[in-house]
């Protein structure tokens, strides 16, 4: 952990706190990492989304555990047990709406969190492992949400599961065996539903474990900040509490208002009505779509007319994120000082939205073409534009320190023209 001039908080003098802390230094941990923990003084609201994601994980685990108390993981009983949760279980509807819409909120939060990282270059030295752990969390979240969506055993649950598990059959030789193994039978069926439930229950706790590693890595070098330059000393930092605890709490309140709007007034906007039809292995719905948060990847999958090619490209679209710290050759972190990258960043956002739109449409005509163009752009962005930008772009002058533009009226700091980012 980062060492700083740590002065214990007053509560550390309490005799009970001292007694416990001497045996298990949990109060020291809290005080050092959450209370006195020095954070850059200039974090904006985009830095709220990490704590929002953590809180969403807690919300999902709590609502999920209470759902599991009334859920029946069998093909004969799953659909009815979810209906029972909705109609007969006291506040079952509320718990389920929280869980259903919570998954969507969780993904919105994490997508913003990731885009924040892209914009401010948070994946660069020395935060590469922090970035990797984030992608691992994202992958685990996708697996969790995918398996969760199978549980209510509606038509989209069943056919989504069928299509996605069949992706693995694209791999030569082993593909068919993998699919049989995933299913535990010859189609998506009772054994599949059972294991998906077991894993859906487990994975969020695995995510929680990786989140701890993510935070550990974060606290070694501390948060990046909107300027993307390293803190030079204590004048660049403020203690986490009360400054960021209050800022996080305020953001959380705003976020919960939006979340509550969906839960209470619009619980189905983000879902698909076909999931109110019980799974039928003999009838495929005319138009299978995954949940909205998977649509961009679904569009990549369908952009190529070749089965294996589509599957590889889809996995590749996430795998490429692991290489990002090296594909981006610029030494300046924040897009604020990268005029060209800023343009490409927004084009990339548009590209992802276009993929999402194309993924929701039938794969033909204009949507297919849009999906293909956006897929090409997606990969060009990482493989060509980012490496080249680092060479050709002329970054704006970086301020000399975080405190200077804030405290020193700005001008003085701007003198340190195009000094390359310091690697402290």
């Amino acid at each position, binding site marked *: 952990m980062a060492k700083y001039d740590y002065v214990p908080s007053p509560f550390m003098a309490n005799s009970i706190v001292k007694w416990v802390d001497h045996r298990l230094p949990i109060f020291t941990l809290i005080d050092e990492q959450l209370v006195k923990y020095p954070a850059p003084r200039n974090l904006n609201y985009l830095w709220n989304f990490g704590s929002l994601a953590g809180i969403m994980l807690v919300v999902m685990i709590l609502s999920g555990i209470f759902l599991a108390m009334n859920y029946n993981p069998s093909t004969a009983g799953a659909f009815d047990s979810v209906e029972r949760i909705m109609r007969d279980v006291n506040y079952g509807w509320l718990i389920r709406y929280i869980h259903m819409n919570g998954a969507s909120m969780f993904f919105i939060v994490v997508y913003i969190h990731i885009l924040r990282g892209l914009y401010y270059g948070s994946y660069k030295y020395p935060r590469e492992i922090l970035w990797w752990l984030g992608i691992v969390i994202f992958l685990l979240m996708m697996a969790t949400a995918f398996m969760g969506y199978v549980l209510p055993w509606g038509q989209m649950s069943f056919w989504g599961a069928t299509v996605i598990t069949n992706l693995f059959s694209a791999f030569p030789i082993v593909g068919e065996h993998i699919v049989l193994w995933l299913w*535990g039978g010859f*189609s998506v*069926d009772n*054994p599949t539903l059972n294991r998906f439930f077991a894993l859906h229950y487990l994975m969020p706790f695995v995510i929680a474990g990786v989140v701890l590693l993510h935070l550990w890595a974060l606290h070694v070098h501390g948060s990046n900040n909107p300027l993307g330059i390293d803190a030079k000393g204590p004048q660049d930092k403020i203690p986490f509490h009360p400054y960021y605890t209050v800022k996080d709490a305020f953001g959380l309140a705003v976020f919960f208002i939006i979340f509550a709007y969906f839960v209470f007034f619009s619980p189905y906007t983000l879902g698909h009505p076909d999931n109110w039809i019980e799974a039928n292995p*003999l009838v*495929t719905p*005319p138009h*299978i779509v995954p949940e909205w948060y998977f649509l961009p990847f679904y569009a990549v999958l369908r952009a190529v007319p070749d*089965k294996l090619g589509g599957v590889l490209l889809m996995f590749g679209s996430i795998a490429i994120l692991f290489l990002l710290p090296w594909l981006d050759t610029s030494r300046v972190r924040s897009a604020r000082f990268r005029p060209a990258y800023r343009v490409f960043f927004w084009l990339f956002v548009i590209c992802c939205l276009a993929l999402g739109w194309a993924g929701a449409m039938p794969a033909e005509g204009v949507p297919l073409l849009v999906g293909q163009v956006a897929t090409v752009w997606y990969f060009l962005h990482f493989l060509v534009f980012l490496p080249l930008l680092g060479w050709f772009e002329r970054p704006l002058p970086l301020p000399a320190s975080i405190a200077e533009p804030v405290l020193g009226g700005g001008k003085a700091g701007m003198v340190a023209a195009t000094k390359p980012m310091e690697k402290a």
Partner: protein
Amino acid sequence: MAQPGSTTITEGEGRKHPDGTTRRDFLYLSAGAFAGTGAVLTGWAFIHSMNPAADVLALASTEVNLAPIAVGQAITVTWRGKPVFVRHRTAEEIAKAKEDDKAALPDPQPDARRVQKPEWLVLVGVCTHLGCVPLGQKPSDAKGDFGGWFCPCHGSHYDTSGRIRRGPAPANLAVPSYAFTNDTTIRIG
């Protein structure tokens, strides 16, 4: 290091062979190999527990009575949790399937190798792309551009022999293993 002539033996070294290895190296390696093999074998038990279980495998055959299926009609039965299409083909459909043996097929296979009796076409009704059930069983269904089946999920067209003709699916609709137990009954699986 043990000094020459001294009796002290540093922990973990034991008596050395001239080439520098010790008996303890052997113990480390053999114990490690033993534990590693055990871990892999135990791991396999857990992984294999997720493969289809004995009861699932035991349910793997279905009998179908063909007598009530009129010419031109098709029925769907369930086998291993999947739909199986049984189509009583018309003379035109058979002729078309044979004629198409010469067409450009993505997954070439003559019609004769896909049927036991030309009038009875038996297929696993699962699109070889990503597993949707193609349309074409009901008279009102879209049958695609080749008169067989059409998969709405990503647009695969199958012909009157269940062969893939156009679209993302890589292979023909699979023919399950089946046998005629008498003239009007088949056992699938």
